[in-house]
């Protein structure tokens, strides 16, 4: 049971337990003062807050942010996009997984100001224009790849990214590259089946 596979360095998007733990250690360090934490592009709004521009699910948003705010809290509390869930706030569970410029990240470990000028996609943004479900969402229903549903948005975001990363080649590979997303309900068999079902449909789409 190889839970912390050595991850090839050419797959920055993959979320597995080891890199997440490194991230968690960093997050536990005291927060740097705003001037250091914020990337150069974010504008100081004058009251200790920073003005950032994000594209969220295709929509341009200008926000004035507490520099300490995580992307997760910003999505949930600031934009009322509560699909991404908080299961640990330490990069250890994957429930908060979103896409940042198409790559999966733990949004709890990503400062919102780091997303300045970038595109964020959340679970609310993966269905098609006409509201038709994304093939991965449909496959999760068809294979009952969920129980309580709390990890589900993160699992789906990770699964979509995993297919795009070309990591859906085999059951073993899927299991490795999904191992950063915990499901306490134990829906793993259904999630694997859902990914195997949706991957060819995504490629064909």
């Amino acid at each position, binding site marked *: *049971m190889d839970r912390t596979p050595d991850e090839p360095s050419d797959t920055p998007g993959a979320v597995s337990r080891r890199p997440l733990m490194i991230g968690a250690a960093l997050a536990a360090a005291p927060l740097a003062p705003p001037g250091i934490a914020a990337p150069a592009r974010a504008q100081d709004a004058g009251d200790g807050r920073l003005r950032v521009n994000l594209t969220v699910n295709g929509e341009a948003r200008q926000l004035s942010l507490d520099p300490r705010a995580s992307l997760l809290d910003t999505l949930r509390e600031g934009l009322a996009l*509560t699909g991404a869930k908080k299961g640990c706030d330490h990069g250890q*569970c994957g429930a908060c997984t979103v896409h940042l410029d198409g790559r999966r990240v733990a949004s709890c470990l990503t400062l919102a100001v780091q997303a300045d000028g970038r595109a964020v996609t959340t679970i609310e943004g993966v269905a098609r224009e006409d509201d038709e479900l994304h093939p991965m969402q449909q496959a999760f229903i*068809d294979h009952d790849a969920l129980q*309580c549903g709390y990890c589900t*948005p993160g699992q789906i975001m990770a699964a979509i990214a995993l297919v795009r990363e070309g990591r859906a080649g085999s059951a073993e590979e899927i*299991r490795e590259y999904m191992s950063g997303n915990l499901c*306490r*309900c134990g829906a793993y068999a259904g999630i694997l089946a859902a990914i195997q079902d949706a991957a060819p449909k995504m490629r064909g789409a």
Partner: protein
Amino acid sequence: MSDTSFPDAPRADAQDKVRGALRYAADDARPGMAHAALAVAAVARGTVWRIDAAAARAVPGVRLVLTHEDLGGVKPPGFIMGGGYGFQSIQPLTSPQVAYRGQPIALVVADSPEAAAEGARLVRADLAAEPHQVTLDTPEADIVAQADSPLPKPMFADVTVGDAAAALADAAIRIEAEFRHPAQHQSPIEMLSTVAEWRDGHLTVQEGTQNAEAIRHGLARQLEIEPARITVLSPSAGGGFGQKNSLQAHTVLAAEAARRLERPVKLVVSRAQVFHGGSFRPASRHRIRLGADAEGRMTALVHETDSQTSRHDLFPTQYTELSSRLYGIGNFRGRERLVRNDVQTPGYMRAPYEHPAAFAVESCVDELAYRLGRDPVALRLANDAAADPVTGRPYSSRHLAECLRRGAARFGWERRSMAPGSMRAADGALVGWGVAIGAYKAATAPAVARLRLLDDGTVTLGVGGHEMGQGMRTAIAAVLQRRLGVDPGRITVEIGSTGATPQHLTAGSWGTATVVPATDEACDALLRALDALPASRTPAERLRAAGRAFLEVEVSRRAPGQPEAVIGRLATGLPAAAGPAYPEFVSFSHVAHFVEVRVEPTTCRIRVPRIVSVADCGRVVSPRTAASQLRGGVVWGIGAALREVSEVDPRHGGFLNADLAEYVLPVHADIGTIEVEFVDEPDPRLNRPGVKGLGEVAMVGVAPAIANAVHHATGKRLRSLPIRVEDLL
């Protein structure tokens, strides 16, 4: 309705879940919401003699800090197993006493989560530490024999059947062994979270829970207000697993802060704090003595247990409910003791007693099979019970043998060679095949169900129960669909929130056997009421023909043998379930697990590539969600056997690995193929639809099946969980 199997159907709330649209408690995000964070004690026991919140109060955006110095008036909730509502009897922040490491000592409320977290970090407390004990093995421990304790009897009396001592003395074969199970944490991915808000003197609490009514009545007690002034909303919980079965310690703090600030307050207990902020599975020790005759008939079993409890509560145990009834053994003696530790009160975690007890008993039964040179499946079949050995009453249904036979066939058990270490994979890995069985009481809670049919054909069913992922909404919809011919899109299921029907605790695997029969009887009542209306094609047309806008019926249902007084307990949020022993019969669900492990010969790494599990939970009402629940239970068994332990350092108290990287849950890469199957035979003696419970039996027996498979692969009997690589090196 019990005659035929139910069809496969999608999970009722799956659409919302895959869209991220389902609202859990902490998903209430509104302008004006205040955010709260806890500061906790860093000693294992002691007294707060000075607390300084000045720095916290000075953080921009911080609006309120509560400590024991200013939480005057809040009363303790009472212990859920002692006539109260709380997971433990004490309420943090109501006195300077610290009973365990991680106990909250301050609540900081601010305009943003960031300010609240920073404020909580800045709370300074001077604590006078006192000596503490945090393990079962602590010298001079305060040990309470449950039989001599004030805990209610006969519920928590020692179980005695026949004369175990004499039968053991006469036994041709005796197995004696001690087993250890560590403390573990339920760890649902949704953390303990509450949004509290007051409007015109009425408190509304949103919290993912298994027991909305206990939160309501417990808060009424704590705040000394009428329960009618409190509403608790919990339409969906992000997992519970026993942790969310009662009023938590943080809830009243959020409510009190919301009252003082006159704005809604959201408190999401951090993951590290959840490890000390709610209950946990207590560490336990099991001494087993098993006697059998030369033919392999088990004749005597003695099961003695020690289990952690807190200094302030007696968390009772019922480990011997499983061991006394798993087989037809005529002589049994149980003795259960509680060891007082300086911890928060332990509590229920999926299959709280049955999983550790099955690990002990089923490991010994496997050992017996090897002493006899007898196939482990055949030995189990030969010792099946014809009637309940404790009461002598018949089982309402018992299909354990069927589980074993079907599982063995599907797994290919006949290809197993008996000798340890005799099977190898092509890559050189040692292969081990193990089996174990499990049981879990088929309990039932009282329920009130209210069913309303509208003239547009829509149906609303309210009943006492909580959806936490097990599929209760889907099961209820399946019944309504079958009985009333209404399609799922026209069904609304109202569960988990107080106000309409009383919300009994959903735990102990009694959810389905509680709400499905109640829904079924509500359908009877509705159909009877419709009979009085003019005949027409569909129920909705009959309503329209009669000029009625709607028809509503209400039924109240108790478990077999329950007195009418239980409805009063139901209405006041107290646990009121019955079973497994009913007046005429005894009811259990059963399961058999067949496990393959592979042990890599040099590193001794253990993998579980394949498990076959066959369960008897009566009639399966929702086949798709039931299969997921059974697989999930198997995943839990894998975690318990090979991964999960809440580490304790006796010097410091508390739990060391209080996060999801260090408290190791099973991940995708740990899980191989899990094949599940149901006997799907209704149990109409227990209730007319014939349903029993599934959520917990699913897990019982997985850990010993894995341990037995490890023995088969390696020849080593491992009696302490979790099994680790170093145990095999």
